[in-house]
Each structure stands twice: as structure tokens, then as C-alpha cells.
């Protein structure tokens, strides 16, 4: 992913919408819940998929996220869907393929909605408060921060190659790309050591301390209840019927 593409992701829609203002834990739990319900449903559970799609559509409308943004960001799932369509029919019927595609679309759209209504630092904060191991959230936080730095370095190195006439016409000329990757890895490793020194210089001793505290309110409870009310009865009814 290029640096420009990295900058293109992030909060979209109306930052003052009721969905954007929800506690990030409520959005994380609610949207993950939609995904879990859809993914765990059997192949022909079309009412469940439809309900999940309705919940996601209502969330997108409330957050005033343009359909174009959803489509562009959700397009990341298309290669997987193509792979699914090409491979699964060899063994299963069309309904299974359609259900798998529906599940993939629901999961992707839920993730896109979370990313469009919640900043990445808030998602991390929510994960920490939901007791995800601190080491995992610290790695994610550092990865988020330095992804932009490494992408910028990669872009400058690519421009440097092009500026010196590098335009590979065969696989045999692609060796320079490998050497760029090695240089990028070594630079990142060196930077990691410098970052660790800078962290220790400011008293770091292990955990990443956090500043803000989150507070669940009535709106968060209402959002979670609405999601549960829209999906759980259908899902339970299907389970009982099975």
C-alpha cells in the first residue's frame, strides 16, 4: 500500500454524527457482533444476512458515510470473492458460494464502518479496555505509527531508483527491488533501536501508558441493544429450527 493510499483511510462521514460519537468499545463490540452472527449462520440463512446488511446500512446512514467511500474501501474484499467464485464451485453448490460471499461482504463492510467512524488510536484504546493483551495493542500502535514512516521511505527509495533510470523489463532486472527491500528492513531495524532508546529516555519501562478514559453511556447501550434486537432473535430462531 502506498503512502498516499494510507492517508486515504481514516474517519469519514460526519464526525459529529451519533455513530461517530459512540464509545469506541460499543462500536467495536456491535460491529464485531454483526460479523460474528453473520459468519456463524448456516449457508441458507438469508434472513440473518439481510438483517445484518440492514443494521450496517442503518449505521452507515446514521454516520452519513457516502456510499462511494464504503464501495471504495470495501473493494479490498473483491479479490477474495473472485477466488471464492473460481474455486468453491468445484465442490459445493451455488448457495454455499453466495452465502460465503454474503458473509465476506458483511464482515468487510462492518470493518470499513468501524474504520470510518473511529480513529485507529480510539480502536486501540477500546481493545485495551476490553482486555486485549497490552503487548498486542502496543505492537499495533507502533505498527500504525511507523507504517507511514516506512511507506514514506519506500516511496523515496522507489523514486530514487526511477531517477537513475531503473525501469525493469524482465524478471532478471528485478533484483534491485530485493535490495531495496533489504535496505528498508535494515533501516527499519535501526530505527527500532533508536525508538527504543528514545522511549527509555522518557522513562519507559514496559507498558504503554494511556491518557484518556472511556465512558459508556446510554447511547452506547442503546446502540448495542438495537444491534442485538435486530440480529439475535433471527439467529436464535435458526439455531432452534436446526
Amino acid at each position, binding site marked *: 500500500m502506498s503512502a498516499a493510499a494510507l492517508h486515504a483511510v481514516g474517519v469519514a462521514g460526519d464526525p459529529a454524527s451519533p455513530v461517530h460519537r459512540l464509545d469506541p468499545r460499543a462500536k467495536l463490540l456491535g460491529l464485531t457482533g454483526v460479523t460474528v452472527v453473520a459468519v456463524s449462520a448456516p449457508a441458507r440463512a438469508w434472513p440473518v444476512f439481510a438483517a445484518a446488511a440492514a443494521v450496517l446500512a442503518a449505521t452507515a446512514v446514521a454516520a452519513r458515510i457516502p456510499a462511494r467511500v464504503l464501495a471504495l474501501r470495501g473493494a479490498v474484499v473483491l479479490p477474495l470473492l473472485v477466488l471464492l467464485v473460481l474455486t468453491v464451485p468445484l465442490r459445493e453448490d451455488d448457495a454455499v458460494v453466495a452465502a460465503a460471499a454474503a458473509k465476506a461482504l458483511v464482515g468487510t463492510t462492518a470493518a470499513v464502518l468501524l474504520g470510518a467512524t473511529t480513529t485507529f488510536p480510539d480502536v486501540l484504546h477500546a481493545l485495551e479496555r476490553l482486555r486485549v493483551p497490552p503487548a498486542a495493542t502496543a505492537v499495533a*500502535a*507502533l505498527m500504525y*505509527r511507523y507504517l507511514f514512516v516506512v511507506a514514506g521511505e519506500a516511496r523515496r527509495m522507489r523514486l530514487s531508483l526511477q531517477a537513475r533510470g531503473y525501469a525493469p523489463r524482465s524478471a532478471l532486472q528485478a533484483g534491485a527491488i530485493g535490495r531495496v527491500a533489504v535496505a528498508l528492513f535494515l533501516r527499519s531495524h535501526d530505527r527500532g533501536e533508536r525508538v527504543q532508546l528514545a522511549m527509555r529516555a522518557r522513562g519507559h519501562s514496559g507498558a504503554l501508558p494511556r*491518557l484518556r478514559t472511556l465512558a459508556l453511556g446510554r447511547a452506547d447501550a442503546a446502540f448495542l441493544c438495537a444491534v442485538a434486537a435486530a440480529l439475535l432473535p433471527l439467529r436464535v430462531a435458526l439455531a432452534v429450527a436446526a
Partner: protein
Amino acid sequence: MIAARGLRYRYPSGAAALDGVDLHVARGERVAVLGPNGAGKTTLMLHLNGLLHGDGELRVCGEDPRAADLRARVGLVFQDPDDQLFMPTVREDVAFGPLNLGATPEQALARADAALAAVRMGGAEERAPHQLSLGQRRRVAIAGVLAMAPELLVFDEPSASLDPRTRRELLELLDGMALTMLVVTHDLPFAAQLCDRAVVLSGGRVVADGACLEVLEDARLLAAHDLELPAGFDPRALVERAGQLAA
């Protein structure tokens, strides 16, 4: 504030980085540390905060560099702000130091906001570091150590890669701070404008120590240690101009 005598340090490869450094810095002084690449400037800086430990005598803020609270009293500002700013938002990064020192989230928040205001970065609290310019990131990195209320500020190449206007703004910012400062730099005009005293470090030793202007006027000394003033730069004219402005 800093008392080093016979300070020596060798890297694991065996190369001597510091080869008997003698340096005394009094409270309130602003000292430029000049020297060629590989002279040991950054290694010396890392000793002042207890990140490296060499042989010889060293007291910083009257304490042994292994003292637990030294990192609160000595603020290191690294050359590349991307090495220093690692939290997802500016406010969280500036609050990182105070939280490590045991401040409550409310106290850390207040200190972070005050430090950001002091470096004229109020309003950028919720932004991500990658959304800022290099000059802004450097200011936030300075806020990150100011929030820890240090007694000694140590800068590693603070003016590196800055455009002239951002460099001047940084100079004004640092000039307005009433703190003891050690400024490691290759930028001799920057040193002349900010520091009263200069130390030349070369081959891991202090080879010159005196008034900044006298050091910068010693062309043979500068040439012997790969230092060079920009063409046409006259340190005396700088001081005379400053005197006229003050009058």
C-alpha cells in the same frame, strides 16, 4: 549540572567512542557541543540520561547517571523526531513521559497541553505525528521532554533538515527557554546564536572549550576538526547586530 571527568566508552565492537571526556557545565549555561561525524557527540548525550554507562566519573544534576529519577531531570531531544514520536496522537505522545513518571491521566493531560502551548503547537493535540511537518514534529518532540519538567535539555542536531524560516522559529523558541542546555550540532551559526560557550569534541575527547565566538573564530581549530563556517559568515557581526537590537 554536568560534571564529567575521564569519561570513557567503548562500543561492543571495541571502537572507542569516548576517550576521556572532561566536561563541566554549570546551571543556566547554554553549551554547544561541536565536532566532526563520529566524534562521540551522540554517545556523550546518551550518557547524560543514563542510556549508556561508561567508565570514569560522571554526575548529572548532582546525581549518579544510574539514579532512577534522572530521566525526569534530563530531557533528550533526538535528531529525528520520528524516532521520538511513536504514539498514535500528539497529545498521547507528549503525555507519555509524565505518565511514566507516575502522573495521573489528568495531571499528564494538563502537562501535555501546557508543553504543547509552550512550543506553539496548541491545537495539534489530536493529530497524528505523520500529519505534521518536520518542524512541527520537532516542536512536539521538544514538548515531549518539556512536559517532564527537566532541569537540563540536551538537543541532538536540533536544526538538521529544517528550512530557514522553521530554523529561525526554533532558534527563537529555544532562546526563550530559561533552562540549562547542551546543543549537539554541526550548524555553527545556530550554535553562535544560541550558545555562549562551545566545546569541540573530536576523537572522543574535548579538544577545545571556551566562549562560543572565540571557538568559532579559530579557523585553524575548526579546520583541524572538520568544522567550517558558512562562506561569508562573521560571528562577530552577529553579536554586534544582537547588541544593536537589544539597545
